[in-house]
C-alpha cells in the first residue's frame, strides 16, 4: 500500500486511471479509424498512424503498470522486471529491423 494512502485515495486513483484508459482507448480508435491524412503523404501516413497508436498504447500500458499493478507504490526494485524484458525486446527488434534490413 502506498505510503499515507487511504483506501479512499486508492479508490480515487483507480477510478482516475480507469477514466484515462477509456479516454485513451477512444483516442486511439479515433486516430486510427477516423483521422485520415492527405493522400499525398503516402507512406508517411502509415508511419504516423503506427506511431500514434503505439504511443497511446504505451501510455495506457504504463498507467496499468504504474497504478493498477502498484509499481508506483511498491518496492522500486520490482521495476527491473519490466525494464529488463523491455530492453531485450528492443535489442531483438533493433537487430532485426535496423541492422538486419529486408534480408534479416
Amino acid at each position, binding site marked *: 500500500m502506498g505510503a499515507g494512502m487511504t483506501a479512499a485515495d486508492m479508490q480515487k486513483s483507480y477510478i482516475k486511471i480507469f477514466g484515462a484508459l477509456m479516454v485513451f482507448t477512444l483516442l486511439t480508435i479515433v486516430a486510427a479509424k477516423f483521422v485520415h491524412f492527405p493522400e499525398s503523404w503516402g507512406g508517411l501516413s502509415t508511419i504516423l498512424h503506427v506511431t500514434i497508436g503505439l504511443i497511446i498504447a504505451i501510455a495506457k500500458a504504463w498507467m496499468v503498470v504504474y497504478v493498477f499493478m502498484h509499481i508506483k507504490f511498491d518496492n522500486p526494485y520490482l521495476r527491473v522486471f519490466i525494464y529488463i524484458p523491455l530492453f531485450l525486446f528492443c535489442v531483438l527488434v533493433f537487430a*532485426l529491423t535496423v541492422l538486419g534490413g529486408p534480408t*534479416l
Partner: protein
Amino acid sequence: MSAVATHLEQGHAATHDAHAHHDHAHHSVSFIRKYIFSTDHKQIAKQFLTSSLFFLLVGGAFALFIRWQIAYPGEPIPVVGKWLPDTLVSSGAVQPGFYTQLVTMHATVMIFFVIIPMATGAFANFCIPLMIGTDDMAMPTINMISFWLVPVAGLTIMSGFFVEGGTAAAGWTNYPPLSASGTGHMLWVIGIFLVGFSSILGGMNYLATVLNKRAKGMRMFDLPLTVWALFITSVLQVLGTPVLASAASLLFVDQVFHAGIFIPENLLTPTGGLFPSGANVGSGGGGQPVLFQHLFWFYSHPAVYIMILPIMGVVSDVLATFARKAIFGYKAMVFAVMAIAFLGFVVWGHHMFLSGMSPLLGTTFMLSTIVIAVPSSIKIFNWLGTIWKGNIHFTTPNLNALGFISTFVCGGLSGVFMAIGPIDVYIHDTYFIVAHIHYVLFGGALFGIFAGIYYWYPKMFGKMYNETLGKFHFALTFITFNLCFFPMHMIGVGGHMRRIHDPYVYEFLKPFQPINQFITIFAILMGFSQLILIFNFLWSLKFGRPAPRNPWRANTLEWAAPAHPGHGNFDRDITVYRGPYEFASPESKRDYLPQWIRPAHIEKEEVVAAEKH
C-alpha cells in the same frame, strides 16, 4: 551417526540425533508424496538427477549408433542392429532417414534432457536451499511441477519414434521449412514447449528463493559462486526460454495450419507439388525461414550459457575447497558471470553468419561474440589464480574440475575461431563445430556435472562414493574424451560436413575414414567408461561408507546440515558471519572457516570434532 553433531554451536548438549528428525518425515507422508510427487527440494533434485542419468544413457546410445554409421557405413550395428525395425535399419545398418533422426534425438536428449535438467534442475534444486541456509524453495509446489514436466516432455518427444514418418529429423535446431511438416516434428515442438515451461518455472523459483530466503546475515556477496551462477542462469532461463516457446508456437501453427509464418511462397515438396502454405500464390504473404532462426538462437545461445554457467559455479566451489584456498577475485567472478549472461543475449546471430543476414548485422554479431570471450577468460585466469599457492587435493570432484578447465579452454578457443565471421564461412556446419560442441558440452558441462555429482554425493545420499572407482572413471573418460573429440577438429578443417549419413559419397572425405574409425573406437570406450560412474553411483548407495557431516571440510552452508538432511534441512539455526571461501584464514588454526561458525566459537575444538564425525 553420532549425535554430537547438533547444537554444539549453541553451546548446549546435543539432545537428539539428526536422523530422528529425518525419520519423523517418513511416517507423516505417504510413499507417493515422498518419492513421486514430493515437494521437498532434495527429493526433486534426486528425481532430476536420475532422469538425467537415464537420458544420458539414451542419448549416449544414440551417439554410438551415429559413430558406428560414420565409421563403418552400411555395416550392421553390432548387437543392437538386428533388433531394430526395418523402417529404421536395412539389414541392421542405419538408414539415412534414421541417421538424421538419431542426430536430432541425440542432441535434443543431451541438451534438453541431460545437461539443462542436470545443471538447473538437479544442482539448483539441491544446492540453492542448502547453500543459502533455508528449509526449502520459495514455491515448492511449482518446483514439483517443474520436474514432472520433464518426463512428460521426454515421452512426448520420444513417442515420435513410433509415429508415421518417424521422429523429428531436422537437427536439434529444427529449422523450418524442413521441420514444418510431419507428426514427429509436431511432437518435438510440443515437447520443447513443455521442457521450456519447466525451465521457466524452475528459474522463477530459484530467483525468488535466492532473493527471499537467504539465511540471517547472508548478503548477496556472501553467496557461494554456485548459487550466484545459478541465480544468473535463472535470469537467462526466465527471459530466454519464453522466446523459444513463442518460436515453437509459431512453428506449430505452421505445421498444423500451414500459415506461412516461416514458410515462404510457393515451395515445392519432394514430390514436386506445392507445399501447403498460407503463403502460396493467391493467398499472399511470404514467410521468413530466417526469422525462426533468429528467435530460436535468441533463446539457444543464452541456453548454452544456461548449460555452462551453473557448471562454472560448481567448478569454482570444488576448486576452492580442494585447493584449500579462497577464490581468486570472488567479485570479478560474479561480474564475469553477469557479463557473460548479458552479452549472451546479444550474440545469437553468430550461429547464422551464413543465413544470408545483412553483413552489417554479421559484423555486429562477430564483434559482440568476440567480446564475450573476455569474461570467460577472466574466469579461467581466476581459477588458475585460485589453485596458485594452494594445497591441492586430488579427490575425484577436483580431478573433474581440473579436467573441466583443461577441456573448456580448448572448447572456448575453438569458439573464437567460429566467432570470426570469415573463418566461420568455411568451418560452419563442419565437424569443427561438432568438436566445439563436445568440448564445451561434454568436456565443459559434463565434466563439471561429474565434479558436482561426486562432490555432493555424500550430502545427497549420506554415503561416500568409492574414490578409486571415481578416479578410474575420470582418468578413462578424460583420455577417451580427448582422443574421441580432438580429431574432429581436424576433419572439420578438412571440410567434413555435419549431419551426413555417409561421408564417403564425397571424394574429398574418403581419406578421413581412418580418422572416423579412430574417433568411433574411443567413443565406444568412452561410452563404456560411463558404466563405471553408474556402477559407483548405485554400489555406493548401498555399500558406501556413511558420510560425515562435512567430509570435504568445506565452508558453505550445506555442510552445516546433517549428513543426510531430512525435510527442513537444518537441525540448527543458521546465521552467516562471513564469505564462503575463508580457507587458510589467519583467524583460525584450521585451514577452513565455515560461514556459519560464530566468531566467538572459531577456536572451539569441539566444533571441529562435530564436523568430522
